[in-house]
């Protein structure tokens, strides 16, 4: 089986416990306008040329899982400390549950845990295929507003909610990840609703990810307009306020 890998980033320090390698996969079923990895939305391979360096990069190299595992296993020594391992991100890795299951199993044989970074808007059957194979899920909670979810990012909140609940209920380790997006969910009302949703699902850990526009160059290289190009990252005070609020109910960390 193969995966369309857009990049492999070693010593990723923000994508889970310990020292990790993050595998970014192609293809996403949402279209969040602030997305920082727009090169991973289209499932097909794409070649981008960056203006600043003139460098051309291929995103979406079709890679045999066996070969990918060989590459990922190079860092086994580094993963061993503090629960490190591999993180699969994207795009939406849950669009390829069979391949991710095979990857998880192959890594598992070598004692390397796999973390899945997902927005959760996929049929529950996809998560069923990964039962017992995943160290931890990073599960995005972008909004608790059904209309916003449908209209802005193209998601089905009911499906996301139910997946989150079922994952936690199944006994998986799930951390909720909230991107703090100005003009989208950066309000007290929105925080309260998200907190309610997460509490109902039984979530205990929350990571806050302040918006950044580091993906801007990728939009330019893709020839796409970036809706958030002019949007400034939230200031420290706003992020701190969010941390305080969620901190009342959940174990909360900010991932800068």
């Amino acid at each position, binding site marked *: 089986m193969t995966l369309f890998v857009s990049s492999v980033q*070693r010593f990723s320090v923000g994508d889970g416990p310990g020292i990790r390698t993050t595998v970014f996969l192609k293809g996403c079923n949402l279209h969040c306008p602030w997305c920082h*990895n727009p090169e991973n939305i289209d499932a097909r391979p794409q070649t981008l040329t960056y203006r600043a360096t003139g460098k051309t990069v291929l995103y979406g190299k079709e890679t045999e899982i066996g070969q990918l595992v060989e590459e990922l296993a190079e860092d086994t020594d580094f993963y061993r400390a503090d629960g490190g391992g591999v993180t699969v991100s994207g795009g939406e890795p849950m669009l390829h549950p069979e391949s991710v299951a095979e990857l998880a199993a192959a890594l598992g044989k070598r004692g390397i845990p796999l973390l899945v970074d997902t927005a959760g808007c996929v049929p529950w059957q996809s998560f069923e295929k990964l039962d017992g194979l995943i160290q931890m899920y990073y599960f995005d909670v972008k909004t608790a507003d059904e209309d916003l979810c449908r209209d802005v990012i193209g998601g089905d909140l009911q499906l996301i909610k139910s997946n989150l609940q079922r994952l936690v209920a199944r006994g998986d380790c799930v951390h909720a990840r909230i991107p703090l997006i100005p003009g989208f969910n950066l309000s007290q009302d929105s925080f309260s609703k998200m907190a309610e949703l997460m509490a109902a699902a039984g979530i205990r850990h929350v990571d806050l990810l302040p918006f950044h526009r580091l993906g801007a160059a990728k939009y330019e290289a893709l020839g796409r307009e970036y809706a958030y190009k002019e949007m400034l990252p939230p200031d420290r005070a706003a992020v701190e306020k969010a941390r305080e609020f969620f901190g009342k109910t959940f174990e909360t960390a900010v991932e800068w």
Partner: protein
Amino acid sequence: MRKITEALKTELDQVPAGRLSPELLRMRGYAAHEKDTPYRRRAYGLAALFTSYEPFIYQNDLIVGSIRPLYMVSNESEAAEAKKWMEIHKERNFHTNADHFAADYMTAARIGIPGLLEHIDRSAANGQHSEDELDYLSSMKITLLAFRELLLSYARKAGELIGTEGYDTERLRMIQDNCTAIAWNAPQTFAQGLQLVWLIHTCFVSEGKGAMALGRIDQFLYSLYESDIACGRLTDDGAQELLANVFAKIGESKYRDGTYDVINICIGGTTPDGKCAINPLSYCVLHAVDEVHLPGQNLSARVPEDAPDEFLDECLKVIGTGLGYPALMNDSVNMAALRRYGYEEEDVRDYCMVGCIENFITGKQPAWSDGRFDPIMFLEDVLCKTPTEELDAIPSMDAFMERYKERLAWGVDKYTEWFSRASAVADPKMCTSPFMSCFCDCCIERGKDINMGGAKYPSTHGAVLMGIGTVSDSLAAIEQVVFTDHKAKLSDITAAINANFEGFETLHELVKAAPKYGNNNDFVDKYAVWYTGYLADLFDRKRTYDGGPYYIAMAANVTNIYAGKDLKATPDGRLAGQPLSDAASPTYGKDERGVTATLLSVSKPDYTRCACGTVVNQKFSPSVFQDGKRQKLRQLIRIYFSRGGQEIQINSTSREVLMDASAHPEKYPTLVVRVSGFSALYVILPKEVQNDILSRTQHEAV
């Protein structure tokens, strides 16, 4: 930074007029003792240097010792007279073991000046010495007595300054008491021990010596620190304040030409009985260096396997401020490397560093000397000096390597012959170092100069090997393109490098595409392993002029740029004039698979063959030094060390670096932005987005 340190730094910023002119004072001693023996005349020169200037005390001094008064403006006749004497009593230089020395401050702090004088007297009276040795012992004594006078003149000066505006009476009294006390007794307090060591160091600097290491200050002052703490005379903060007061004065070195001297300070490591030597004073030293926050205080942390996490964590916090220190040294690898040379185990455990990273048996060997050995030059020789037909008749990579090995062996012969000749001075009796010899083990017992058989061990020379990355990449490119894929002949490579790849664009692409060192690819990494082992073998067979070993190092951080300027293009695709790979690092920007892959590659060579030391530079963005992330960096270092890595010099990409990267993206091809769930190189980001990161960085620095 506390107020007194800041105020002292401001005082230090005032550059004195004139130039550092120790010879003007030395010659007075020479002239007054013209008829004496050369040893003693040499010593009187130093005595004049130590005693014929008015000591200078900064308003914010807690510990005294300044070379400011030695900045002088000379008249012509004085200068001519000094020059005449300098012809008679020549000065040693870097190649003749003049400086880059770590003194035996352990003994000095324990027995003080009186103890050393007694030691000399006892040695002179033991009836075992020749006339020559007795003459030398008396020259050592002259310098120590002059040093005592210097201490007393500082004490006097402190007394005289009491009541002067800007000076603090209590501090002056402390200086007066400490200097008087250690003139006549061994140091009894931490402040006295530090005062003694700093003034000895100041005397070395006043002689014109550079890169004189302070060495293992957390060890040789530890018992004084401990007893002061026990009786409530000192706190950790007080110790840090005193240390910062000393380290700030390293800043005086920039008066000469605006650049800082490289004063190595070593913390941590292993005790003489083999235990982890990290102690509370190690942390005081670390924080004092951070407090002063200036270059020149070249802090090295010896990290033993059982170093507590807290120690590495504190080191990383200091590195994360953007200071770039301490350099982290794998203690077990360094000790294993030194053990190969038969030093006594206790001496191995007591090593420190001089200069940037050079391993040194503290106070037991002559001053350091090194040179640059450039293996790339010899690869160029094989390719460009072998006739075309002969070159293309080379049947295999192994056969090619035999040619290269022969040429390297010839190069090492030439290099060592040159240095062994250059290191032996014509008339060692005329350029003795009687003061430095007082602080080198065995010189007093033997009655001999440090460079004339006095030191416990003979001299070592460090051959600093250039371009491990460039060589490995070049050999891999030859193997790939010529002997594996058969896409070019060796003579094509020669023609291409002669033409700087102009007209050889296809071949240029082929060699650039070959595997590069630093990506955990054995096809190329095997050449780095070979390079280290083979050159270590060659240098192991050589001896310095006095029978000491030639060590190897990979630590050229700047000279790789100059060396590259003189070289043609290389088979790895590097163009003529471009820098060679630096130190022990892969070629800059060619380690494209991330830091773990880089560290997997660079931990493959056997660094227990590199007794001099190696440097691997790595940059991380400031976010990696935050709480919660820093432990991952610590783990990265632990794993790297457990795999045999020798050294890592970590830099936090400060605001300045990021700004430079924005202005010169070509210099930072692999600078990674680490944000959760995101992957990008810094240099592809648009300016305004780079500014987001800059403002974030600024925030973190506060």
